[in-house]
């Protein structure tokens, strides 16, 4: 990830010097090799709640107990600012993420029906067909760049169908999503959001006139509590929905595929014991959390003995919840037979990921369809997976090889 210059800010007087750790979440040391491990080092070596002078100066909560408290106590830890650094020029409120209950609830209600289990069940056949087709094409090649060739195809094709946008447009949309979730440059992020709104305009217009059964039509014609949704709300909801749908599952797939490529015993175990899949999936998600959002402190308060001031920002790296040994013993070991897998990779509280059921289903389908056809694969010798941290952890490059003779059709 490109590092732009972000000079550290001065420590405020109420922040004890022993709480200060110089940590830039856009470029944690070691993130290129294993981004969750890079965050884990911060949890191991720093105080439970620490303050970094980078990215405008903010707190980071590294332990499960505090992360849960921050994510659920929305009165004290508001979602009105959830990306770092704080951007005073960000004028539109991103919905539904930028508001708290009770204002938040009617917006979430609009999108929730599209992600309910019964809807996910109805799209599963399509997900499976897409996945099987992609893997069948790759298998005889003996190699691929997983991110471009699979991770950025399957979930995006599924999502583009749900919103009924042309699949070819992914080429236009993906670079904007990359900027929004992982660029430290606020001006670029605003520009990418504006581009997305511009792109959406003609579709919103068309579906206002003749709605279909897609998610954009649902939002365009939604009621917010008992009044029609406004134009501004429509664009805000859709923009966030698209960015959420475009990047997150791709990121998770990248991490999980890298793990499976480098852990043949786990891979063979799962192939031999398909009944482990549900637990294995949770364990893989626990080890590879992706979201690093922040909260706005609404009042002077104390959190686990640390004095926080109203107006400060505190970051909650979700990956650290499941990697906290106070919650999960031996947390860095991926154990498909672990009892009681605890993680918060989809958040806790009002802003819990609405797409969690769909995300899990897509990952399950990937594992089933991939392992059935390409059971043996590894990292391309001499290549290094590229990973990046940001608002969302991601894998940006993952080269794989396998012997086509070991594949099955």
């Amino acid at each position: 990830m490109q590092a732009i210059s972000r000079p550290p800010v001065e420590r405020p007087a109420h922040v004890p010097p022993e709480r200060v750790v110089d940590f830039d979440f856009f470029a944690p040391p070691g993130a290129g090799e294993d981004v969750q491990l890079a965050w884990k080092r911060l949890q191991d070596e720093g105080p439970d709640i620490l303050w970094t002078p980078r990215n405008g100066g903010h707190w980071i909560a590294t332990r499960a107990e505090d992360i849960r408290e921050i994510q659920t106590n929305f009165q004290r830890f508001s979602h009105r600012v959830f990306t770092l650094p704080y951007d005073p020029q960000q004028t539109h409120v991103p919905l539904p993420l930028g508001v708290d209950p009770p204002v938040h609830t009617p917006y979430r209600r609009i999108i929730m029906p599209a992600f309910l289990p019964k809807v996910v069940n109805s799209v599963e056949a399509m997900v499976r067909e897409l996945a099987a087709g992609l893997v069948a094409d790759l298998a005889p090649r003996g190699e691929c760049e997983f991110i471009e060739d699979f991770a950025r195809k399957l979930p995006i094709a599924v999502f583009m169908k749900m919103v009924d946008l042309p699949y070819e447009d992914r080429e236009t949309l993906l670079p904007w999503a990359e900027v929004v979730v992982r660029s430290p440059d606020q001006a670029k992020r605003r520009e990418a959001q504006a581009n997305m709104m511009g792109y959406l305009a003609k579709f919103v217009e068309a579906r206002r006139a003749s709605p279909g059964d897609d998610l954009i039509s649902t939002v365009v014609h939604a009621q917010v509590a008992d009044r029609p949704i406004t134009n501004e709300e429509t664009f805000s909801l859709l923009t966030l929905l698209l960015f959420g749908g475009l990047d997150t599952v791709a990121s998770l797939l990248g991490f999980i595929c890298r793990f499976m490529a480098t852990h043949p015993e786990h891979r063979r175990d799962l192939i031999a014991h398909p009944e482990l899949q549900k637990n294995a999936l949770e364990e893989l998600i626990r080890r590879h959390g992706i979201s690093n959002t922040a909260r706005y402190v609404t009042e002077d308060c104390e959190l686990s003995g640390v004095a926080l001031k109203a107006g400060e920002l505190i970051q909650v790296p979700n990956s650290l919840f499941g990697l906290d040994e106070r919650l999960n013993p031996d947390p860095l070991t991926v154990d498909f037979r672990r009892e009681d897998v605890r993680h918060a990779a989809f958040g806790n509280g009002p802003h819990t990921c609405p797409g969690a059921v769909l995300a899990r289903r897509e990952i399950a389908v990937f594992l089933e369809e991939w392992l059935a056809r390409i059971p043996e694969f590894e990292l391309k010798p001499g290549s290094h997976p590229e990973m990046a941290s940001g608002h969302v952890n991601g894998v940006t490059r993952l080269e794989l090889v396998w012997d086509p003779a070991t594949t099955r059709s």
Partner: protein
Amino acid sequence: MAKITYIEHDGTEHAIDVKTGLSVMEGAVKNNIPGIDADCGGACACATCHVYVDEAWLAKTGERTAMEESMLDFAEGVAENSRLSCQIRVTDDLDGLRVTMPESQH
């Protein structure tokens, strides 16, 4: 610890000791009780852990949260005593609790 009786739609009863601190949903899932799907893993985001709380226990299980209320709109056959079991935290006070599952969670 609390003894909770989970009653399937066909009347089959399962009496289980559930640890304090777990949710009523987790108590069922950990013990493979059929009838509670909990597709979202307890995040109040899927409405597939719907149960009917025995009338005698309504006061002790507490009020629905706003998010739960909103999610219950997406469940089938919702009644006055409907709850999402991922949102009921088990305490010693719930020893003896009885909940019934709907015919289907989808």
